Each structure stands twice: as C-alpha cells, then as structure tokens.
C-alpha cells in the first residue's frame, strides 16, 4: 500500500523539536482560545500598552476575557507557571502552534499561521542574551545549513527587556544569500517572571518566537502563504519526492 504524506508544517516541527531536543528543550502545548492574562497582561502587555496595538487580535463574542492567541508566548508563561508550582528555577521549552492575527490576507499574510516560541530560564546570570544567540545560532545552522549565521537588532516587546529582532543569513538553493527577519526575542521582562509566580531576583532567561511559514517559504521556495492551510492535496504533494531521513529509509 502507498504511504500518505506528512504536511510540511509537521515535517518542520519534527526537525525543530529534534534540534531543540538535543539542547534539552521540552515541547509544550497550550490553548488556542486563550485568556487575556496569558496572552497579554501576564506578558507585561496590560490594556492600553503600546504593544497591543502592534498586533491585531481576534476577540471572542460574549467572552470579554478571551482571545485567539496572537503568539505562543502564552504557552511559555503557562510553562513558567508550572515551573513555579513545582518550585523549580530551570526550564527549557519550545511551543510550536497555531496563532491568529486579524489582518487582511495576501501572498505573504495569513490570519492563521504557525509560530515556534521558546524560552530557557535558570538562576540569575546563568541564562543570558549570549545564550540566546548561541542557541539560535546552533538551531539555524542545523536547520538551514552550516553557512547560516544570525544577528541581533534592537527592538521592543512588552514581555522582553532587552528586546531584539533576530535576522538569519540564509542562502536559498541557487539564489543569492540574504538577511531574513525570522524572530522576535530577548530576555524575559522581570514582570513576566513575577506574573508567572517566580522571583525575578532569582530566575532569569531568554525567550524567542517566530513564524514558521515564512521560514519554510524561503527554505523551499513556496510562493504563497495561503497554500499551507488550504487543505489542498496538491500543496502537500508539491515537494520533490520526500525521503525519510535519519531513522528509516523507505
């Protein structure tokens, strides 16, 4: 009997989970229909905070407190809450998942897409911005190829301080190399650590998050982001024959 195909988002998440797994990262899930606290307020984005206007949010009818999550950082703060409950200080977690933004769709914008968020925390001073750079450098080298390198640019997010944009240098097959904006990142803002029930005088760490489709579009040369969640079998079959890799050859 012929085998079916795995969706490219799943293909990517498996590779990403593997690479981060080798660096000690767990994989966490959380609700897509999220409460205001885990999506905004707990992430140091209170009502009227400028960062709320940076994202177009889907709100839920008759449930004032609920939103469709705009990022998977909501899963990160839930994981931090669990860490606080366990009395721990150290954790490394990635959370791949669907997120939602209320913005007009076109070839490069979708109202629903995947993000991979992640974080590492430890006792104060043991997890730094340099570790963020080291972790992401290793990730992109393993994921995109040994030539990949990253750079940081100043940015602003409610839930991190300092905050950076992460660019990766990537050479698509047969094309010129270029810098691609792939992720927002930084050191967790102490207010986030505190909101999760941890003590920012004892625990600190980095967080990052970026869209998955954008990365895959560049990696494989996919022309339109709307193909991903179209349910169209021609998209899933649109890649040159898949070969199973490390574990098994088919």
């Amino acid at each position, binding site marked *: 009997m012929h085998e079916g195909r795995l969706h490219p988002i799943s293909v990517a998440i498996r590779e990403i989970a593997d690479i981060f797994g080798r660096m000690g990262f767990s994989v966490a899930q959380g609700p897509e229909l999220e409460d205001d606290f885990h999506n905004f307020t707990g992430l140091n984005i209170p009502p009227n905070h400028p960062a709320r206007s940076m994202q177009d949010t889907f709100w839920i009818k008759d449930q004032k407190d609920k939103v469709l999550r705009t990022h998977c950082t909501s899963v990160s703060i839930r994981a931090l809450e669990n860490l606080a409950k366990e009395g721990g200080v150290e954790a490394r977690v990635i959370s791949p998942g669907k997120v939602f933004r209320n913005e007009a769709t076109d070839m490069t914008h979708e109202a629903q897409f995947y993000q991979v968020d992640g974080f590492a925390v430890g006792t104060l001073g043991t997890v730094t911005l340099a570790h963020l750079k080291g972790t992401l450098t290793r990730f992109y080298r393993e994921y995109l190829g040994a030539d990949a390198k990253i750079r940081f640019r100043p940015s602003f997010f409610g839930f991190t301080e300092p905050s950076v944009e992460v660019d990766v240098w990537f050479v698509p097959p047969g094309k010129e190399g270029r810098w691609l904006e792939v992720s927002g990142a930084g050191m967790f803002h102490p207010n986030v650590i505190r909101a999760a029930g941890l003590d920012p005088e004892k625990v600190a760490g980095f967080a990052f998050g970026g869209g998955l489709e954008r990365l895959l579009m560049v990696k494989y040369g996919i022309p339109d982001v709307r193909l991903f969640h179209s*349910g169209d079998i021609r*998209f899933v079959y649109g890649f040159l024959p*898949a070969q199973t890799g490390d574990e098994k050859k088919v």
Partner: protein
Amino acid sequence: MKISRESLQKYFETPLPDIAELANAFTFHVFEIDSIEGGVLDVKVLPNRMSDCSTEAGIAAELSAILDLPLKNAPKVAPASISIRISLARINGILGSDFSRDEVEDVFRRLRFGVSSESDVFLITPPSDRSDLEIPEDIAEEVGQILGYDRVPATELPSTNKVSDQARYRGIEKIKDFLIEKGFTEISTQSFAKKGDVYLANPLDKTKPALRKSLDENIQEAIEKAKQYAPLVLAPNEKPKLFEIGTIFTKDGEKLAVETSEPVPGLPEIQDDEKYQPKRYHLGAYKPFSLYPFITRDIALWLPSGADDGLTISIIKENAGELLIRLDQFDRFEKEGKTSLAFRLVFQSFDRTLTDDEVNTIMQKITEALTEKKYEVR
C-alpha cells in the same frame, strides 16, 4: 518618522557620515529604517521611545549618543526623579557580555545619564525625557544597543541534567505516522467556520464568523477536491485519503480532534509517548502547480522484442513534450512471450486551458512514434 540627513546635520558641527552609514547606525543601535528615499530616512521609532524620539531633536540626540558626536546646542534636560541601581556584573549577567567598566561608563556619559557609584553598583539617574528607563534591565539594554549586539558572543547553553519532556507532542506525531502508513495524507485547514459554538467578536471573513466545532466539514470539502486532483499527484491505483489533527472549539472548551476522510479500523487514541521517535522526512524544493485544468489519456501497448519499460517510457516522454506533467505505468503483463504495458498520461499547461484536440494531436504523435518502432498500440 521621516527625516533627512540635512535636517539631522543642523544639530551637529561635525559632518555626519553618509546616508547609508546613518541608516546602519540607527538599525543596529536603536531603530529600524523602513526606507531610504532621496536622502530621507524613514525611522521606525519604537513605541517605548515616543516620549523622547518623536521629534527631530530627539532623533538627533539619540544619534549623538550612537555616534558619540556632540550636539551643537545640547538642550538642558532635567534629571528624572528616579534612580536605577545596577552593577557591572549584572549588566554582563543579562547580556552575557564581557564589557569593561570603562566601556559601560562611556555609554552612560553618551546617554547623558547621571551616575554615581557605591563600590561596584552604579546609581543611574536618566534624563527626564527617558521615561522608558525604569528598571536595571532597561539600562542593560541601553548598554547592549549602544555598544552593539554584535559584541554579545554566541554562547551555547550548558548541558542540563533536567530531562526534557516531549511526550505529548510525540504521542500526537505517532498517530500521524500511523495514518500515513495507512495511506492517509495530512492536510491543514482553516479554524474559522460558518457556524459553531464559539463566535468571533471581530471576524475577518464575515461568512466565517465562528470557530470550527469539528474538522469534518473541512475534510469533506478537501477530499472532494483531492479526488478531482488525484491524477495530478497519485498513481491510477492509488486513492486519495486525508486526515487532519487540529483544535476544535465546542461548548465544553477546545480539544484536539483527529478526523479522517474515511473510517480507520484500529485508529488509536492520542496518548503521551516520550519514547516514540516521530519519523523524519526531508523535503525537496517546492514545485508550484498550475491552476489550469488537466487532461488525462490512457495508452496500452504490446512491446516489440528487445524493448523494455524504460525505453518505452523514454519514447513516450520524448514525443509528448512539455505539456506531459505526469506519466504513470498502471499495468504490465506477459502473454505468449509478449509484454503488455499500460500508462496514464496527464497533460497540463501553466498558462492556458488545454483543448482535447491539442492533446489528441500529441497522443497521435506518440502513437505514430511507437508504431514506427514496432510497438502495437491497442
């Protein structure tokens, strides 16, 4: 905010670097530049800096700190009423850097911070227009930005004794592998629906104001299309089968649902499984598909002696030309020492709708070429 090099120059005695260098100075030390057009920079002032950088003078003051160039008429800004305590060790402990005391103090001077120190702790009083500076981490960020994040090394996390937990994720992927082995292909569909238990307050697509309460409708729609497109992606003896694993939203809350285009005997429930190793796939480059209709034709033939499958395929491909996008052999048998092969040909153009006449002409050409080589086309 749009600002030209000339208008910035008014704030400085020393000639400013050229526009490209100015753009880099902003991009890597404070704000992204959205565009450079005709000597004008479009500076994307970050929301937390609206208090001091929403004017030309504010931007010039920031540039003066980045380039360490004095302002012509530096405005007197009163000190803020707060002070922030941070040590050099803490700054380096946030950034993972190895900045010296001299370097950090130089950054404070350039940013017009009031600084006193108690042994190894700095007591910093920012200027009152920097209302964004409140906590030690804000100061570390200023140091990182001004000295440049390229000076932050890439350090790998130390190995950890804590065991990572991927059990839930691996349990989900195990179900996907189970289905793929049974010939099902994974699809992903939209979470919005015409009807449901949960409605959006501000839907983007007014025809789909709800969140899906099952995956069934999307799978049904997708399988109908998949049947139609099957000749493009599957062999003639293969039947499209689809599945989706995704979140649904019901009165009782959201849950992860598994939906298949036909019943699957023995489909297990999702269970955590830390030991399961999800199968890894490596995809090649993406090949876009044509949006125009396709046409299929079958051909069956007896092979002359000396011919084999490979030769037959190459004769067909040679004569079919570029409009042949897929060729599947679907039958082969031998009778009285002769071999019979059957193929399905799929024709499609990237820029127009093909006509039957056009495809008939191609088939005619293939048939003639095969006949000439002593094939018997049935």
